[in-house]
């Protein structure tokens, strides 16, 4: 067994609606899989099936070698799950709530105490341990949910929008926590915050309309962008349109555009290649003075839009 999570041909239909429509992927220990997709793409539904909350219409999920349908208790024991919105028992305090979770997770005595304290410390909820959960801020509620999910140090961690609704500092803390745990766990986080792709993930799966549209590294995802390795160039000696004309004729350039701000031009390379060195040489050969020249990363939002809307254009 190499993969901690194996998903085979998984589907969930609600009547006519195919919320999840035959998806396959797997997650290994040490991977943080960013599960991306627009709202309603089937991210939460998939996570609910992995954690055994929803029964799939077809296909199978195995977690740490346990089929979730056949061995639900063993599979659930190896999963830490933060459901969407981090539901908890509102009238309990984090202290009693986490103790309840520890009880159910099989801890007792000193081990139970240690597990609760450790989870509360890592999720940074120690200072609110004895306030009713319903009185806590959204950020604290989310972190109580997180503490609950990591309490038993599970080999598999599944988090549905763990940073949704948090302020930038809280997001940073949650991401730090996830990165700390990443090495010895298989983690799936769903998000539609694209900056988290780089901040957190070692791999991305993009789903749209219940189907996997992309499965690869964040770098590969970025490389799909038109802007990947595009160069923004500003030259003092010559006006932009003339520059664009000259650069456009170079053999390694696919296309150029004059920036609407008037601050130089953007050069799109052929086949997404690195062209900064070649380009600067050619400019210098002309005796022009380069004011600035830098390569762009891919634009995730553009890639995201391209991947998740490509079917809508063709459909009806």
């Amino acid at each position, binding site marked *: 067994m190499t993969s901690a999570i194996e998903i085979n041909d998984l589907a969930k239909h609600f009547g006519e609606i195919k919320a999840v429509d035959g998806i396959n992927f797997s997650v290994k220990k040490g991977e943080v899989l960013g599960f991306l997709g627009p709202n309603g793409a089937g991210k939460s539904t998939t996570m609910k099936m992995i954690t*055994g*909350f*929803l029964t799939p219409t077809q296909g199978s999920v195995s977690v740490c070698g346990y089929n979730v349908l056949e061995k639900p208790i063993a599979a659930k024991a190896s999963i830490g799950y933060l459901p969407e919105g981090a*539901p908890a*028992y509102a009238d*309990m305090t984090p202290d009693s709530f986490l103790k309840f979770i520890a009880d159910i997770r099989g801890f007792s005595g000193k081990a139970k105490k240690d597990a609760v304290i450790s989870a509360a410390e890592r999720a940074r909820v120690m200072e609110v341990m004895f306030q009713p959960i319903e009185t806590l801020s959204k950020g604290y509620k989310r972190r109580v949910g997180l503490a609950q999910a990591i309490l038993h140090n599970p080999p598999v961690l599944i988090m549905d929008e763990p940073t949704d609704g948090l302020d930038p500092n809280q997001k940073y803390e949650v991401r730090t926590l996830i990165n700390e745990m990443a090495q010895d766990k298989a983690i799936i986080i769903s998000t539609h915050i694209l900056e988290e792709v780089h901040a957190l993930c070692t791999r991305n799966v993009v789903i749209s309309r219940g189907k996997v549209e992309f499965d690869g590294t964040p770098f590969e995802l970025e490389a799909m962008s038109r802007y990947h390795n595009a160069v923004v160039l500003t030259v003092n000696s010559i006006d932009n349109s003339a520059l664009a004309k000259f650069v456009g004729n170079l053999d390694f350039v696919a296309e150029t555009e004059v920036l609407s701000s008037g601050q130089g031009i953007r050069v799109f390379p052929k086949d997404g290649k690195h062209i900064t060195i070649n380009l600067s040489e050619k400019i210098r050969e002309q005796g022009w003075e380069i004011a600035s020249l830098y390569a762009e990363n891919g634009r995730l939002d553009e890639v995201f839009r391209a991947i998740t809307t490509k079917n809508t254009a063709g459909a009806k």
Partner: protein
Amino acid sequence: MNMRNIWFIMKREFNGYFATPVAYVFIIIFLLLAGFSTFYVGNFFARGEADLYPFFSMHPWLYVLLIPAISMRLWAEERKSGSIELLMTLPISVFEAVIGKFLAAWAFTGLALILNFPLWITVNYLGNPDNGVIFTGFLGSLLMAGGFLAIGSCISATTKNQVIAFVISLVVSLVFVLAGFGIVLDFFSSWAPQTLVNAISSFSFLTHFDAISKGVIDMRDMLYFAALITIWLFANALIVYARKAD
């Protein structure tokens, strides 16, 4: 079936009653109504007998009204707050959750029932009652409460709305009580065959509780309540299993 899990779920649920004023309000109302019905409706003093029959005979009616208030939150609240997703993704079985919650509600009802002990002291002070009969009465009342709770728990699992759970549980409970009531049976006995009348009557809480409350322990009455609780809780588990995510 893991007893530890049942115990932890029961403990959490039981404490949950006391996290809000609901528990205290319920217990006070229960004691007031039990006392009122015993003395005024049941004519505790005028009967001149040292027993708690007037107290116990009112319980079916009290329970119809009050038990749905205890059972309505069991599952409806889990659904409404979304915590059912948390509960059902913990390494426990649906049956453990259903039984744990039911036992918590039952223990809570038992506590409310036991808090009527001043009445027991009173009757012992005033006369020489048969405490065996009184004990049987408590036991029977508790069993019957379990029946009402199982109905209420099952119905609570069908909705997110506690008010709906309350109202439907009340109506279903009422049907189970009234099935043995004279007026209902008279209505059927005028035209229906006697076997049907007996069948309807045998489904009634009243029929089975009346004997127990008088101190008569009949295995059939015990079995009736045990079977009733089992069937409703089984249905409860099926509903939770099939519709937990709805």
